[in-house]
């Protein structure tokens, strides 16, 4: 299963490292990353593959939310299907 992770918030050092470490620990593979910083606001979108993931989707979601709270960011994971359905015919 593929999913999109979005990270939105104030830019600080080590955001990508923190998210990537969290994913690597759970054997979640990153397929693509894109990021921008606009007026100090950090926005990152990440396409990931959960096929080999060692934990359930809900646990990944909880871990990312928690990491976001720690770093003052909003981090969420959503299955890719919702974006496919909305933006592709």
């Amino acid at each position: 299963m593929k999913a999109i992770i979005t990270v939105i918030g104030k830019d600080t050092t080590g955001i990508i490292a923190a998210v990537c470490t969290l994913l690597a620990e759970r054997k979640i593979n990153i397929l693509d990353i894109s990021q921008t910083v606009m007026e100090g606001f950090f926005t990152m979108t990440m396409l990931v593959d959960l096929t080999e993931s060692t934990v359930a989707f809900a646990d990944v979601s909880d871990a990312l939310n928690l990491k976001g709270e720690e770093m003052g960011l909003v981090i969420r994971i959503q299955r890719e299907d919702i974006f496919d359905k909305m933006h592709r015919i």
Partner: protein
Amino acid sequence: MHSQKEILSTINMIDHQHLDVRTITMGISLLDCCSDDVNVTADKIYNKITTLAKDLVKVGEDIEREFGIPIVNKRISVTPIGIVAAACKQTDYTPIAIALDKAAKTVGVNFIGGFSALVHKGMTKGDINLINSIPSALASTERVCSSVSVASTKAGINMDAVALMGRIIKKTADLTADKAGFGCAKLVVFANPVEDNPFMAGAFHGVSEAECIINVGVSGPGVVHHALKKCKGQPFDVVAETIKKTAFKITRMGQLVASEASQRLGVPAGIVDLSLAPTPEKGDSVARILEEMGLEVCGTHGTTAALALLNDAVKKGGVMASNHVGGLSGAFIPVSEDEGMIEAALRNALTLDKLEAMTCVCSVGLDMIAVPGDTSAETLSAIIADEAAIGVVNTKTTAVRIIPAVGKKVGEIVEFGGLLGSAPVMPVHEFSSADFISRGGRIPAPMHSLKN
């Protein structure tokens, strides 16, 4: 991979424009729960619902989490109880309503619809018992919703049922007077009801439906409003096109949720109802969409035309996004549940007569309207008859969900709380319709019902 713009636009819709799936409604047939004893029937109903719907709420929550899309309500609709209970020797069907309420609480759904009777042509013994049980059923339950079909394009208007429903609404208001007539907020009188409507209070599981199905109702007035802000001053062609594109996106999401829920519950997917359903929250209003088109206040001249465009564009945008569109599909205009409608009514811009005109061009009828507590049963019936006539002649669903606010006068506010919001008490015409209603009988079906 999707562009950041696409991803962020979806997230913005969810975070800032109230995009949500309004309801996943499981339709359950209760035809195999008949017996000659009301308590036995009630037990069978409780057992069937709590078995089939035991995972409904959990599955809804799982989908919500995985897709990051809020699913506001999980609900159940059942076969009209007027049919299911017809074989019972008792005449009071309240025990069945209590069983439905208990089942709803056990499985964790917030409303259960189907304490209903279909009497658009005539009333059976079971239908009459059901209708007479409505006031006590709604007064003794929290989550049960009731509806009665009194008219259809094929059958005409059953004026005996219309007269009866005026009295039933009054009685329901009296029995729930301590809760601002809350019982009436759960009671809908229909013309041309649909059998697969996932929205409350009018949902029931029609007899032509399968054993168990999943219907999904999508919403998103805030998303449409936001999209229209970007086409200020543009011609209506642009407005219609913008609404269509937005409705398409919203409906695709609803279709995805319907397919997922159906697969996980092992229950066939029925329909997706693409209705713009407002809530009392700011930024989730249908009235504000109409105002965005250029009206100073919803209810002023031009409102009917604006609503007609909106209703039509929502359908056109949504129809290609779902493999089975059904339910009511269009725009809802429940006064108490729409922050913009409430304000328009408080400013006297939106009146009962204007709302009646608006119901000619949208998917429902006079919805969540509070009228003075001393409004006569005959006047309520006459309001129902007018609304039914609009539905019957225009071959569309219309409905009346009206609350006589016991002890309250025009201008006072009735508070229902939660999704049901608050409503200013609106004036009704003071001239009598009593002799009109006392005639009874049936208003014949219109000429265009004879299509065969």
